[in-house]
């Protein structure tokens, strides 16, 4: 048991507890399992009646069709392009948004200044604006600035969208770092910037990772904005790409499942890489400061 976990206090039904936790979490994860399974099943089994629960046949057909390897179906889905656009938009906007959020969070955590509360609330509340209220006015403005179907336009929106939460998380993180360190740095002759850059920032890196998870997933999974701002197949990301499987006459659930499975791989890798920091990073300074 790691330090900090709840000390076990007289718990005769520990096994039951463990079992219950496993059961609930497996149930929660069931949809993901079902999606992956669906991607590998033949269509006849997916739509069959009465339902077939245990797969009788495994096929890579859906993936072959998606990548254009199926000789019977010439329509293909530009998965590579979706992957590239999604990775670039989510990756770049995450790095920039979390960096900007780190600067802002540091300012809120370490300084007192005029309009501080107003600035903090203003930044936070900008996140509460529903995408649906933003997407069309943005489109009309971006259209005049020639930023539609443009990677930088999309990334800029994702950056703005992810700043508030990153700021909040980093603010909490900096407030958990003991004050003495930066003060020692000032005595050693550091200015504000180098105290931040050399002393405090390295300590806040786990927070950076936590904020990055949220920023990355928010951008990776965003639909409303990108569906309005990226109007060509070449500039689309995965979420609007899912609509390639809903067409006039058919709903290709299997094809969608196959692409969803591919779409989730980078997200899973990313979350596994940083999940160690996740729980400890989510206290938002609630207990200290």
């Amino acid at each position: 048991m790691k330090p900090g976990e709840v000390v076990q206090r007289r718990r005769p039904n520990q096994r039951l507890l463990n079992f219950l936790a496993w059961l609930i979490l497996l149930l929660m994860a069931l949809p993901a399992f079902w999606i992956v399974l669906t991607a590998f099943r033949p269509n006849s089994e997916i739509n069959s009646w009465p339902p077939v629960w245990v797969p009788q046949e495994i096929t890579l057909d859906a993936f072959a069709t998606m990548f254009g390897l199926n000789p019977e179906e010439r329509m293909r889905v530009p998965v590579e392009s979706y992957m590239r656009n999604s990775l670039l938009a989510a990756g770049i906007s995450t790095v920039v948004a979390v960096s900007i959020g780190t600067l802002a969070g540091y300012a809120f955590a370490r300084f007192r200044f005029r309009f501080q509360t107003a600035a903090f609330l203003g930044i936070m509340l900008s996140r509460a604006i529903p995408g649906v209220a933003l997407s069309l006015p943005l489109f009309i403005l971006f259209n005049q600035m020639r930023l539609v179907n443009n990677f930088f336009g999309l990334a800029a929106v994702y950056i703005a969208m992810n700043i508030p939460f990153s700021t909040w998380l980093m603010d909490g993180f900096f407030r958990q770092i003991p004050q003495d360190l930066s003060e020692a740095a000032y005595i050693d002759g550091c200015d504000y910037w180098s105290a931040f850059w050399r002393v405090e920032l390295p300590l806040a890196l786990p927070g950076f990772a936590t904020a990055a998870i949220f920023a990355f997933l928010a951008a990776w999974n965003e639909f409303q904005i990108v569906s309005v701002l990226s109007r060509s197949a070449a500039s689309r990301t995965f979420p609007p790409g899912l609509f390639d499987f809903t067409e006039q006459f058919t709903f290709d659930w299997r094809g969608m499942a196959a692409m969803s499975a591919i779409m989730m791989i980078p997200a899973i890798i990313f979350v596994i890489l940083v999940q160690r920091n996740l729980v400890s990073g989510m206290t938002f300074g609630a207990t200290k400061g």
Partner: protein
Amino acid sequence: MRLQTRVQSGSDIQERRVTDGRISARWFPFFMLLPAILFILVIMLFPLVYSFYVSLTPYELLKPNSLQFELSRALRNYQTLFAESIFWKSVGNTIVFLFLSINLSYVIALSLSQLLARVTRGQGIMRTLLMVPMMFAPILVGFQFRWFFNANVGLVNNLLYSLGLMQERGQIAWLVVEPLGMFSIIVASIWMNLPVLTIILLAGTLSLPQETFEAADVDGANSWQQFRFITFPLLAPFSYIALTILSLDISRAFDIVRIMTDGGPAHRTELNWTYVTRLAIDNTKFGLGSAMSWVTVVLAVVFTLYFFRQLVRSRVVQ
């Protein structure tokens, strides 16, 4: 109001550094905030101001000449909106949706976090499993649950049939029948909300001081009493953090609803968000849709502000 929780030594720093030739303590925080504020002003505020202007005009998408501001008719869209029964229905549905989705998400996440905090084996894997719904784009959650709740080939009806609880194929139209439509979209949104809430509450639970529990043990308090009188009150700041985050993100549920029911049938699951697109795009009344979207923004901000205030208050108490 956040000042109470702010570090107290800022002024000391200021005194010490006033003579520094470079950026002063007065300007340094603004310098740090500048990029954040610039981005938010340009990307968020600018379009909102524009959409407010549009909401004061009778603009229709396919009639470019209708984008004209006239003072005497400026509030007409808002008047039209408030006079429509569907508007009030969408507001009512939104309140029901938010109330149930947020409260149920919170209760489930709280229980789950208490359970997870006590698990002795496989915590790492469990936390990873817990995060699974986070990988799902809300739009995919929508497709997923639309499929699950499909009357004819859906997982839920298939399951009911295989368990012998349903006699024929496709008997329950989950997305159509009242109130199952609202129920279905709420279930989907709860599923999507759980990971973040649970993680925050789990983080909070694990950070609570152990001595308190040990003392309670000595006093012979049972598990429920410990939770009710120690854990739950101490978790208050975490609870409000979680709820604030949820309120910030809840509009992502729009993606789910638009795929599952799109506000239908007959406006039964119409929410503020679906109504915005119905007015602005489907009906091309962009001015009216912008008015609706402003109403939505104001409600969202008020809602989030409420949780923020609670959060600050709970911290002050501590």
